[in-house]
């Protein structure tokens, strides 16, 4: 399954996460696991909306795990180590006023996933891969 994510459009943020959540419930995944997955998916989705121009979320589900690949075209992250620290944020005023951009995105994803891998090229974009085991 794949979902297109539009950069800058907060009114649609969360749509893809909600769709995946519905599926996971139909697959009888434990509610606590669903919760972690959905929190990380939502954070990752909002990251693209808040920072990138456009992106795509690809989801693969098998009997043991869910793998999500989020690829965006955007400014990229110059220092991933810094971005992984709680409270660090490059979000602009407009984004913060909407209640996003508190600098908890990546740390929160890390906390809620079993495996996380992030590759970014400044001026090109970012690719994030997240794995959660059921």
């Amino acid at each position, binding site marked *: 399954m794949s979902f297109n994510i539009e950069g800058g459009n907060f009114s649609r943020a*969360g749509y893809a996460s909600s769709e995946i959540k519905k599926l996971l*419930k*139909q697959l*009888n995944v434990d*509610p606590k696991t669903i*919760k972690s997955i*959905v*929190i990380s998916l939502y954070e990752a989705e909002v990251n693209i909306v808040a920072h990138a121009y456009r992106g795509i979320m690809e989801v693969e589900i098998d*009997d043991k795990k869910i793998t999500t690949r989020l690829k965006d075209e955007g400014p990229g992250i110059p220092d991933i180590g810094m971005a992984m620290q709680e409270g660090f944020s490059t979000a602009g005023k407009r984004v913060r006023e909407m209640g996003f951009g508190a600098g908890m995105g990546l740390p929160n994803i890390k906390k809620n996933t079993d495996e996380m891998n992030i590759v970014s090229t400044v001026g090109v974009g970012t690719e994030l891969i997240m794995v959660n085991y059921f």
Partner: protein
Amino acid sequence: MFQNRTTYHALKVDRQKCIGCTHCMKICPEEAIRVINGIATIDYERCVDCGYCYRTCPAKAIYVEQDDLNKIKGFKYRVVLFPSVMIGQFPEKYTENHIYSALLKLGFTHVFEVEQPIQILIDSVKEYCHSEKNNKPYISGFCPAIVKLIQLRYPSLIDKLVLRKAPHDLGAHFAIQKLMKKGAKKEEIGLFYVTPCCAKIAAVKSPVVERESVIDGVINMNELYNRVMKIIDDVKITDTQEQREYITSEGILWGLTRGESIHFGDRSMAIDGIHNVIKFLERLENEEVPGVDFLEMRACDQSCAGGIMMTGNRFLTVERLEHRAKRYPDTKDLDLSTLHIDVDRIRQKLVSDKIMPKPVFRFDSDRIKAIGKMNKAQRILCFLPGIDCGACGAPNCHALAEDMVTGKAKMSDCIFIQQRWQNEGKIQAGKAYRNLEKKWGTDRFEADCNKKGKRNEGF
């Protein structure tokens, strides 16, 4: 008293009246309705008793079962219990004394509004929130449709539900104590609960939060309203003031939107209308809702004033109740120690049992099979038209695909697929026609200028 056996649902479809128009199927927030053989059929596993189908049905084919009012005759003390919203529907020329007197005339011996003494419930909810510090935001357990919704669809939020019962339990135990104090024996007291809500009926008849209900019978509020209106002009007015001594402003407002949330936490919210609640719960599950302490959620627009068995206009009802509340004292000013009742005992009775999740939306309990079905449903969706026309008897293409993989529907149920197969010579025209007749009944194809569904449409 009702035992907790299989789950009871009060909403029923009258097969004689149902015209299979799909309105209910489209509005149901749980996708619990399908049209089968031209008749709406409710999947009670999924139903949360919100009553939106009842509201929308143009043929009035969905009804709410109730107990026979004659059942009261079996008791010496016949108590009518009702929420304050009942009073709010009557034209203002009728005073509370009028309404109470009419209820006594109908055969009841005692009249109790359920929201009294409301302070006991307020304290009990506060105590719960205090003891469960890590489950913010607390979600009120007041509206039984919302409790069921969370059980079925939002199991990860179940620990946030406040495990306290509703005002009808408060009122019932209060009434029992008052009457027993006057010398009544428990078995002589019959408690009849009048409600505008089919979810409350279901909750009373098969409680989610307790093993056994204290209520002896339920009466639909619209039915009782009609009975009261029939006699109210001729009834001899007696002074019933004494029966309203423990009603306070906060109790009167409890069933209205924000009636509950204003009491709990620094930051509380009230959301009414089940579709609004669902959108909000989705956000809550994504942890998109920071910093809120307490959530009041009600299935009906304008909360209980918009209950499906209310006769009066919901906005007028709200206005009248707000006006009424001003005449009553604040609950703080009512000293519980002057009531001469066992407050601790009532408090114990308000504690609910733990609520367990009931996931009904899964494809299969076996995950590998479930994934197979999920993939199949995704493939089927590629072939469906995506216009959610409902002609297959399912509310949308997505639901039809899910029905197909769980063996409840077949490919030819989709009229677009069938048409395509006909075009490709895979199915005979006659066979396709018979399929539709089977789904919707032969009457659908006959000219009828008074066809129901047509008559009831439009402005």
